[in-house]
């Protein structure tokens, strides 16, 4: 069973990728979802609005960002840690 938070994040990602939520799997990458750079920043904005958090992400160096976007599962984990008020690198 997915938690409410997971469901919410999946539905945000699905909306940005123009997919059905059941088609979004935790192992999928952004490329596999077909999300471009604008879709990514819009997704991050929607996540910030939905959970009232601030996501540390710089589009200039996505790989160096503290926010792991390597897969849907990684994004869910990173958001869950932000909601708990923990810095991602401390947990990792």
């Amino acid at each position, binding site marked *: 069973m997915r938690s409410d938070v997971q469901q919410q994040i999946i539905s945000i990602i699905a909306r940005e990728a123009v997919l059905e939520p059941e088609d979004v799997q935790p192992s999928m990458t952004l490329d596999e979802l077909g999300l471009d750079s*604008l879709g990514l920043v*819009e997704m991050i904005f929607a996540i*910030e609005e939905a959970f009232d958090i601030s996501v540390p992400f710089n589009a200039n160096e996505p790989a160096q960002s503290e926010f792991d976007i390597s897969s849907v599962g990684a994004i869910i984990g990173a958001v869950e840690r932000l909601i708990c008020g923990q810095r991602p690198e401390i947990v990792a």
Partner: protein
Amino acid sequence: MRRVVITGAGTVNALAHNVPDTLMMLREGRGGIGLLSIPDLDRLQVQIGAQVKDWDPLAQFSRAELGLYDVFTQFAMVSGVQAMSQAGLEAGPAGDPTRWGVIMGTAGGGNTTVNDAFRTVFSEGKNRVHPFTVPKLMNNAAASHMSMKWGLQGPCFSVATACSSANHAIGLAFQMIRSGMVDGMLAGGSESMLNFGGLKAWEGLRVMSKTGCRPFSKDRDGMVQGEGAGVFVLESYDQACARGAEILAEVSGFCMSSDANDIVMPSPEGAARTIRGALEDARLNAHEVGYINAHGTATAANDKTECEAIHTVFGAAAENVALSSTKAMHGHCIGATGAIELLACVMALRDGVIAPTINYAQPDPECDLNVVPNCAQERPVTAALSNAFAFGGMNAVLALRRI
């Protein structure tokens, strides 16, 4: 130098959402000014405007497009589709796409987006705005989306010269085609500033009327702001003929100049110099000009200055020229206004119908020209001018010929 013609036109404005209906309204002298319908209207002192009615973006654009299209881009895109369709270029430009481009005038750019973002951070106290705020608000957004839609890969940019923006845009496109730099251009203007923040800024200047737009009438008391877009397909005469396109009119001359004098007050010398320059560029004599679409803002200063300039340049020929300000109908559409007003020139040249200056009540000795009061006039017109004299002393006058 090559001849340049108009082969397509499109518009969205307070009168209608297309060219044929707009021309019908202009011909019949029907106005689009009324009480505005916007949030916080009760806090505005000026509550009238020429707002585009029944605008339904969801019916015209995809969700992805709407995420990136400010209202001024929406108006431009719909107008562009109409213009390209009329020119027979729905699928893309004729010939080499790197020799086609876009120039769009706008003063406020994505002013609605700015207003919404400021409301979010200042009024609602939130600490983030939508991530597409910048690509929506930038002045070149409309021109960029138009270039993307039709794959126009040549010169593409926006022009911001306040109320002269669209005339500058069309004039520059004309010069580029005439010189051989490009073969075709989409050119015009788009504006949407009828929101609380935009109108508050204008209110401060105290040039807006609370009662209505009455150009050249003695009882005029200021401008009324409108919104909308006008877009034209301009291309070389040879290309238009070769591909069998219908030609709406020839753009035969353009002049631009600066008063270099005052940031808001117009100068009759600057206006006269620019009108004379457009005639010379088009190799026209004043007596050949049957119609002038006036800048005609209905401010005390503009209308008398403009009439003085026309007398100076036209001399005795001023007796025979018809001068009208269609702003009394579609409002002052700022960066789009010259493009919408060029439609009245095309109508005069093609149909021999001169759009009236409506709301005219009292003759003003300082505006003693045939201002086509209240009712359209019919007469053959072989050449027409379209004036734009903007804040900042930016003058831009286009000359058109019947073809």
